[in-house]
């Protein structure tokens, strides 16, 4: 028998709690429950989809998405208003998130890295969106809150299809 020496996911550890949170978030996004997704965020949180995969300096570069609380609220409003053609007729998505690593743990905040594979089905075509995720999660008395989420698509420098959903 081989000892795989992989620790079982323990939801009591910071990494385990973060994993449970990220899976919950992924489920909300696939269900397009954007109101509930919006409530996961701390007021100072940033949702970022950079163009340059290697960048950490998001504010001085052009991104696909660089949302603070205001822009996130507007984005959710747009996606749920029924007036956006691309959102009203958006792709059905199924995503899995795995390959979790604890990148940082400081005080009540952790940073976890993971891999996301997302299939989006629309009008006869299924499109793959693969990317690295970085979540910064703050554990508060009211439960965990997202302080940053960065989605680095493998093909971020390429031409993407226009999206009516969130990564």
């Amino acid at each position, binding site marked *: 028998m081989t000892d795989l020496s992989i620790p079982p996911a323990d939801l009591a550890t910071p990494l385990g709690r973060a994993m449970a949170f990220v899976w919950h978030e992924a489920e909300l996004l696939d269900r397009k429950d954007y109101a509930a997704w919006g409530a996961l965020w701390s007021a100072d949180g940033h949702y970022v989809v950079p*163009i340059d995969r290697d960048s950490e300096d998001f504010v*001085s570069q*052009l991104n696909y998405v*660089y949302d603070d609380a205001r*822009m996130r609220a507007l984005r959710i409003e747009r996606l749920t208003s029924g007036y956006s*053609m*691309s959102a009203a007729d958006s792709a059905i998505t199924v995503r899995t998130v795995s390959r979790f690593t604890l990148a940082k743990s400081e005080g009540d905040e952790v940073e976890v890295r993971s891999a996301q594979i997302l299939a989006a089905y629309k009008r006869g075509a299924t499109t793959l969106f693969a990317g690295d995720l970085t979540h910064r999660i703050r554990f508060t008395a009211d439960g965990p809150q997202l302080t940053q989420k960065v989605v680095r698509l493998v093909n971020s420098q*390429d031409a993407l299809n*226009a999206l*009516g959903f969130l990564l």
Partner: protein
Amino acid sequence: MNAPLRFHPRKADSSCADLVQDSVVDPALYTDPQIFDLEMDRIFARTWVWVAHVSELPKPGDFRSTFVGRNPVIVVRDRKDEIHVLENRCRHRGATVCEKTKGNATGFTCPYHSWSYGLDGKLRGLPYSDGYDDVIEKADLPLNSLKVGVYAGMIFASYNHEIEPLEDFLGNARHWIDLFMKQGAGFPVKTQGEHKFSFKGNWKIQLENTTDGYHFPVVHKTFLQSVDAETSEMLSFMTDEESITRSLGNGHSVMVMVPEHVDLDVDDGSEPLQERFAHVTEALSKDYPPEQVRRIVRSLHGAGFNLNLFPNVAMSMSFFRVLRPVAVDETEIRHVALGMDGGPEIANRERLRIHEHFQGPFGFGSPDDAEAWERVQAGAHAGRDVPILVNRGLNREWQDANGDKVSHSTDETGMREAYAMWKRMMSND
């Protein structure tokens, strides 16, 4: 009395020119792969095609790779500061010599057999050259070179070495290019990154869209709801009589959405600076005199118009829109963000945030545009005898003294200009 809609559906012996009729267009223009192939030969291989902006190549050796039609090319600045547009294709067996989108190089070397080329495209070396003694002359085998023209920092290239000078081709559009560049507010305009996305539709569907004011409040309702009242008011041109579309000849046209921002140098001081930019105004006021602060902040949304240059680039308020035809039913779009070269960082960042808000695959505007365009492509397959209409505003279009046709910004004057040029170019064998 209404004029009857006349349309003669395509017949076996119809020529390309027959497909563009009196303000209606045959849907085959969107769907026929043979027409697409002809467009690559008769339009993209014959006219001036935009390839880059000079700010993308500030130093000798700087390059960016792109396409002219379907052909991969490299735009590069050589050591003598001359700009070359070279086919990205080794003269030996055809491999691309550059796979990076941009960078700095001392030359280009083919990965297959190491033929190496200078920044000017000259073949500099090839390994084990004894097999070529008395077979080839290196001087005969440079990277194929396109004709280059630069106007106001806009770099164009053409496969047609006999083509008219770029200035003549741009004609009446030059005045609008000059106006567009005033958004640098005293600084040279520079590119600041780009969004790239593709849609399943013909390139002309995007070409039409740049001067299509009619779609704006419909398709972009959620964008308009998401901006502040001042910006929304600025973009409410539907019933503004000063908001016009103007044909500029050679397929070019311009649509004015914000008449008071057509010439950003003209400022009577009556326009309040937008409240949403208060933090920028406040920060700039520490370093710049009030008139320059006003000029920079008034320019943050760019120029008050979309200038459409046939066939592949638009100078659209605060960005460049570049289209690349990939196939009859696939088009790639780049939205290039602009800023002030050497200008204040806080204002350049604000411009990035404005760009992210509307543009790109995740923007509040572009995905809804792409959705509409894909619907056009899908629907155009229905009914060969049903024309595409580009006749809006014919009842109120008038001709200016310089020959430009003018109508309201929601009218299809710009599209008619583009299709007139299409017809002219496609008629030449």
